[in-house]
């Protein structure tokens, strides 16, 4: 299973790498391995990531995280999952900060950082390019959603 997954990632990475700029990027929404959800819908993800809810059903605080790298994954995530655009999202975070003192998602330097973060916090949720998952097979994370941009 594990080998299969890694192989899949490798395949995907091999297939996708040259297509970063030209071919659609697949992104994966990941959560901490202990998260009770196995799959999530785009709406679920949006309500959790955008802190329209403050905690997971198990009471764990929702901790969204994203990468500082502005590659195609973010755009896909914003448009396809969050179904908004970057400007509106920015406005959303400002609004939420002033209304309920909730901070915007934690920003890590790259997908590796995102994966590290999600592995460290039980309530974390974030997205990475599906290709980044190849090196993270040992991390306590799980993919709950995939989409191609």
């Amino acid at each position, binding site marked *: 299973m594990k080998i299969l997954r890694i192989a899949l990632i490798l395949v995907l990475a091999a297939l996708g790498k040259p297509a970063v700029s030209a071919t659609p990027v697949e992104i994966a929404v990941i959560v901490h391995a202990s998260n009770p959800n196995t799959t999530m819908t785009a709406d679920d993800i949006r309500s959790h990531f955008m802190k329209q809810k403050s905690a997971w059903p198990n009471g764990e*605080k929702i*901790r969204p995280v994203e990468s500082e790298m502005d590659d195609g994954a973010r755009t896909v995530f914003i448009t396809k999952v969050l179904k908004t655009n970057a400007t509106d999202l920015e406005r959303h975070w400002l609004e939420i900060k002033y*209304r*309920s*003192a*909730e*901070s915007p998602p*934690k920003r890590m330097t790259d997908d590796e950082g995102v994966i*590290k*973060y999600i*592995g*460290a*916090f039980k309530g974390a949720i974030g997205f990475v390019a599906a290709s980044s998952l190849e090196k993270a097979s040992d991390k306590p994370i799980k993919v709950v959603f995939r989409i191609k941009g």
Partner: protein
Amino acid sequence: MNWLSSIRFRLMATTGLLAALLLSVTILGTVQFASIARTVDRVSSESELLIRLTNTLDNGDSLTKTLSRGWADPPDDGLQVRFLATLTDAQQHLQRAIARSPQGDVMKSLLEASKTFSDAQEKTTASRGKALDEIEALQLEEAITDALGTLAKLKISIGKGVDASLVGVRKDVRAPVKMFWTVAAVGLFVALLVMAFVLTRITTPINKLLAGVRALAQGERLLVNTDAKDELGELARSFNNMAEQITDRTARLRLVLDSTGDALIPIGMDGRLAGACSKRTNDWFGEIPEGVPVWEHLGAQCPGFAEKFSVAFDQMASEIFPFECAADLMPKDLKIGKTIYGLSYRAVGSVEKLAGVLVVISDVTAQREAEAQEAESKEVFSVVGLCFRDPELYTGFVEDSLRRLDLMKQGGIIRQQADLHTLKGNAGMIGFGRMAEACHKLEDEIAETGKALDPSRFEQLEEMFAESRKRVEALAGQSQDMVQVQPDEFEWLRQTLLHRDPATAARVSSWRLTRAERILEQLGGHAKRIGERMAKDVDVVVDCHDIRMDRKQFDGVWASMVHAIRNAVDHGIESPEERADRGKDRTGTVVLRGRAENGILRLSIEDDGRGIDVERLREKVTQIHGAAAASWSLIDLVCARGASTASEVTENSGRGVGVGALRDAVLVQGGAMRVETKPGSGTRFDIELPLANATWWQSASAA
């Protein structure tokens, strides 16, 4: 008066109402503002917490940035300590805020924040002095971020609370202000209504009273209609009473003014008429016009009066002298034609401030004449007395005066002055006061003019002297011929004659006795006066022998004879009309006789009147004294007590007492009394008195 309807109670009630209103507004305001104050307290403590939290947040934010440095390899202990201190500080604030027990959401946020801070503190303390790997550092940072996040949430929560509190305060403030204005407006309206009611109840009767007072001042009577039961109602009723009394009093005063025999003229200090005059004023002087000084009107016909009055009045009005002194200088007489008016003055107003003068004028013409006559009579009698005492002095004075009067007419000023002065002195000494006064006036005139008087000026003096002399001498004329004899001389004469000529001696002795004729004349004069009073024409005839006697001898008889004489005039003599009807002379006659015969004095009183109705008298006496009276003689009947045929008692007689008294007096002297009467022709009383023991004398011719 009901206490509840009194003005005092109404005013007190109104004031009480206003006070209660003010008090309730104050109490409501105090309660409301106390709640506001509590809210403000809470807000202020929350605000304080807010400020502290903001500071902590700011500190925490800046520290978070240095987090990776503090726990790097090697770790920065100073930063770690500061971190921990910031967290501890924040936790302390939170604990303090929790202790103050803010309510609701804030409390929930506080507890959550405190929990996350405990977590952060725990984690920080656990990692103290260590260098952390990436994941550990991330976890520590996240714990601190969480803590700061709850703090930020708390801040928002408190901010919302403060906002809500402030909104509440605004509401709390608005409510009492609104209530205050509402209560004040309603209260003011009610108070104004009550005030207006009370004031109307006060002012309406006051206005009515004012109108009444004005009407009263104008001399009219206007009753104040009011049914008020308060003080003003009482006042109005008292006023009505007073107005009625004043009107009555004014009417009575008017009656007095119309009835008084004097002229009463009230004068104000400006000399103008100041009120109503008596009716007599208008009768005597005509209506006094207003606006001109009263004296000008009064003195129009009396030269010099107005001027004298005006000057003296000015002095009186200036009040320099006491009123009595000033009034003394005012004119006392006002002569208009032959009438002399006497003036007197009464102060009007208080002693301190003269408000006017009441001039009382009476017609004193008759009085002055009587006074003049009395003065003249006194003067004459006094001079007559002198004539009797010292006829020579009087004669000398007359001769000297006549001579001087003659000389004065011809003489110059020196002569006139000297003679007038001497004449004045002599006249005064003799008792011719008026003549002395006249001389004095002429003297004054000479002194004033410095010239001799015209001879004609002495004519009045001469006339006056002649008149006085005439009157004196008419009375004292006989005295000129009288011989004055001293008692010792008289006694010498009597003694001398006694031995030589006893009859002459007896006659001389009798000069000391009273003539009976004189006594009867006196009684006759009395009868005449009674006749005059009774409006009867009575002629009294005295027919008496030349008898002299000691008057005291029969004093009782003489005194009681008055009764018989009264009876004769009063009951005997008829009225002139009645006499005329009976064919008698209108003039009745009463004859008083006196005779001395055979040692008996016989007196009789006879009238030609209607006589005594004997039967009627007997009937009357029988009624009083019983059946025995039926056989009484006429004299007994006449003298019986209560006997009188007169149908009414007059001021002179009629009581049936007098004649009885006369008979008693006669009987005491051992005499007798008889009566004869002829109906329609007259009555005659005869009295006999024995002279045996009496001192008396009768001229030989009469005997």
